[in-house]
């Protein structure tokens, strides 16, 4: 999880493609397939061991190489949330009390090193990231996978093609929780772990996915190629090259020059110009990502709900979406991120009304407003949205002094929870499971056990969230989350303002790309044509 940093080539491109095509000896290029996709990423990824890493940048790569028992189908764009589909398990059943999951494994699947996938392999993986009593246990993996493994009570092999996991209590979001971008329970080849050691998987990431790993030149490129023995629908691309280009200007230049064919997190003001030049803008309105402020319940003025509501009314969300995000983000009024089963795009809370906000502030005893500290991470491209928010607040008399911190420093402060002299901070986040909201608003998520950085606590909300986890019926589950959402916004301890539609800029030759309601992509549908 990170926040996004707000964000003629034909000769070279044809030459590059001709070279790539020529590299396949004797093969005539079938229509609708082939090519090398070069993706200019905003950051270098860390290690390619899915159990022991936490960055969604990294997951962009490991998603292509590794699979879990269950997958999210990222080949569909026009759905509210990615459908959960069979992966390395062909089917699964959940016991009536919601605690026992029985998975039937897919037969005939091999890891990229040729070793077979079976119940023994699944057992090995579970031992690596969960079972502390096993010799295969890897402490680092457990640290990263904790959000998934804390629910597991037992793991059993039933037969060579069936495994069973027993949870400590019912949790109908558990499968989704295993598919978010922190440590993931994806299947790694046990033979590879035995041969290269736990730390060696980072350089030998061997999974079962539609692409397999070729090479990594840290800071320069990571290369994967099509897996011709993949059990499912084969990838179309021959190769994908992930190229970290941290500087946004360099990313844009490289795209224009044809050196790369795809960039993510483009600078907002470059998008219209590049679209005019013929590049394709791809977005998805259901990407699970919202930007929001935490209001600090320990800061005296914020302890009055009228002040918090006034701040919610003072922010011109539609203006931010229109003038800054320019169509790559929508105004957000609630704390459930898009991209989940529980999201309701029609949910509304506070309208933009600075006059009413000023009245409320006066009622609460602040007719002349007040001063406060606004903590935020420093963005390389300037703090455009934050300056807008500061301006909105000034208009109702609230003087927000911005204190900017370098990213890792900020993460530490945010995770620790705000001190009483700070008024508010911010983050951009979300997941395709609505259970994400627990980490942000629950009473039990106060530091150090979660990221409830503003010390909010409402027992009624927590009861609703706990009930929602245990609710197998999708309609009832959504109703519970929405009820909680309404309570949270009535308490106004958070100020959601805009979601992010994950703009991706592609060269015209990139075909078949799908921008799903998720923070990463399935590249097996893409080809260069």
């Amino acid at each position, binding site marked *: *999880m990170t926040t996004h940093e707000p964000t*003629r080539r034909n*000769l*070279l491109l044809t030459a*590059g493609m001709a*070279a*790539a095509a020529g590299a396949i000896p004797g093969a005539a290029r079938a229509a609708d397939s082939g090519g*090398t996709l*070069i993706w200019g990423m905003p950051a*270098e990824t*860390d*290690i390619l061991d899915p159990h022991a890493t*936490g*960055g969604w940048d990294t997951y962009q790569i490991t998603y292509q190489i590794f699979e879990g028992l269950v997958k999210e189908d990222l080949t569909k764009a026009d759905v509210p949330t990615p459908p959960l589909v069979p992966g390395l398990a062909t089917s699964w059943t959940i016991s009536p009390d919601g605690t026992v999951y029985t998975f039937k494994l897919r037969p005939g699947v091999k890891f990229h090193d040729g070793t077979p996938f079976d119940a023994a392999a699944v057992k090995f993986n579970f031992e690596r990231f969960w079972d502390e009593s096993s010799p295969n246990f890897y*402490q*680092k993996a*457990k*640290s*990263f996978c*904790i*959000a998934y493994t*804390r629910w597991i009570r037992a793991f059993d092999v039933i037969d060579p093609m069936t495994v069973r996991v027993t949870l400590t209590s019912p949790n109908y979001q558990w499968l989704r929780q295993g598919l978010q971008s*922190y440590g993931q329970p994806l299947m790694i080849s046990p033979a590879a772990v035995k041969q290269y050691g736990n*730390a060696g998987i*980072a*350089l030998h990431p061997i999974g079962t996915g539609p692409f397999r790993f070729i090479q990594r*030149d*840290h*800071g*320069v*490129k990571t290369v994967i190629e099509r897996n011709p023995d993949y059990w499912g629908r084969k990838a179309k691309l021959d190769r994908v*090259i992930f*190229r*970290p*280009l*941290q*500087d946004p*200007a*360099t990313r844009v*230049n*490289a795209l*224009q*020059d044809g*050196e*790369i064919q795809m960039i993510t997190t483009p600078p907002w003001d470059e998008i219209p110009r590049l679209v005019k030049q013929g590049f394709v803008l791809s977005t998805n309105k259901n990407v699970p990502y919202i930007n929001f402020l935490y209001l600090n319940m320990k800061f005296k003025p914020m302890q009055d709900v009228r002040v918090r509501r006034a701040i919610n009314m003072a922010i011109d969300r539609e203006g931010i979406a229109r003038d800054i995000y320019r169509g790559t983000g929508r105004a957000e009024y609630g704390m459930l991120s898009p991209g989940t089963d529980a999201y309701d795009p029609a949910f509304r809370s506070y309208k933009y009304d600075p006059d009413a906000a000023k009245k409320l502030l006066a009622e609460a005893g602040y007719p002349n407003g007040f001063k406060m500290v606004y903590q935020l991470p420093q963005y390389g491209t300037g703090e455009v949205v934050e300056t807008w928010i500061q301006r909105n607040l000034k208009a109702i008399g609230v003087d927000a002094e911005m204190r900017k911190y*370098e*990213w*890792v*420093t900020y*993460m*530490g402060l945010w*995770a620790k929870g705000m001190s009483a002299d700070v008024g508010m901070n911010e983050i951009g*986040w979300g997941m395709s499971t609505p259970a994400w909201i627990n*980490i942000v608003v629950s009473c039990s998520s106060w530091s*150090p*056990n*979660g*990221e409830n950085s503003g010390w909010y606590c409402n027992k009624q909300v927590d009861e609703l969230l706990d009930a929602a986890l245990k609710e197998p019926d999708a309609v009832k589950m959504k109703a519970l989350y929405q009820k909680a959402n309404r309570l949270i916004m009535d308490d106004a301890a958070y100020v959601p303002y805009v979601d992010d539609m994950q703009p991706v800029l592609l060269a015209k030759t990139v075909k078949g790309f799908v921008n799903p309601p998720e923070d990463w992509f399935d590249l097996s549908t893409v080809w260069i044509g």
Partner: protein
Amino acid sequence: MFGVSVVVFLLMQLAPGDVATALLGPQATVAAKEALRHALGLDRPLPVQYGVWLTHAVRGDFGVSIATQEPVMDLVLPRFLNTLVLTFSSLLLAILIGYPVGIFAALRSQTVFDRGAMAVTLLLGSTPPYWLGLLLVLLFALRLHWLPVSGMYDIAGNGGLGDLLRHLILPAITTALGPAAIITRMVRASVRDALSRPHVRVARAKGLPRRRLLRRHVLRNALPPVITITGLQLGYLVGGALLTEVVFDWPGLGSLLYTSITARDLPVVQATTLLIGLCFVLANIVVDLINVLLDPRLQEG
């Protein structure tokens, strides 16, 4: 060098932000973070950590990168070589421009050439390399399509010297211009100073041919401060080419230092900074040696 190592070690420890939180992300439990810190050896007392690190470092073992789990030396050495390629090319360019222009300007003092050269060097010396680099990319890569935008080799290609040289041109020019400006001014000042010395006037009066005058009496005396400055430029370039490396995505030591600081990758930061410090020290030693060779007065006995 010992001083450098201590400072480097302490500075990183003092930097706010915790590696475990940075690595594990927001949903980690306290126990998980403690376990990771223990696994990385970060919970031991500082002097112990420093001692352990030092004993390994002197044997060339800088440990394993926290971010990538590769041995640090495997990460740092190739980057170091890449930076050397860029640094030496830039320095060469800077010398090839700076020395002749500086000498010429000194000889044609107060003429249009001299004034023009000084104005240009002032401009170039004060221009931010980041901005200049982008400008060059805009012209030569995007407009004219003569040169690539970024990187050291063609990403989808197979490398080779021609590919490298093509990619080297813009970054080398960008990095060279600042030092070239400084060297030009230094050379000019030094040569002018040498020209005005009494022994030169005497030699001129004696009718010594111009070239011999230049070589024997002027340049040999003008060189020492120039060599010193050039050597310092080299040391500066090794670490200071950071901005160029970022703009051109040149995989060198500067960009590695930047990413490892932001990732709190302590072993890599320590090794990289030490290496840069070492280069500075070595550059100074070489410069001193050259000066000794040039100036008999510095040779003892």
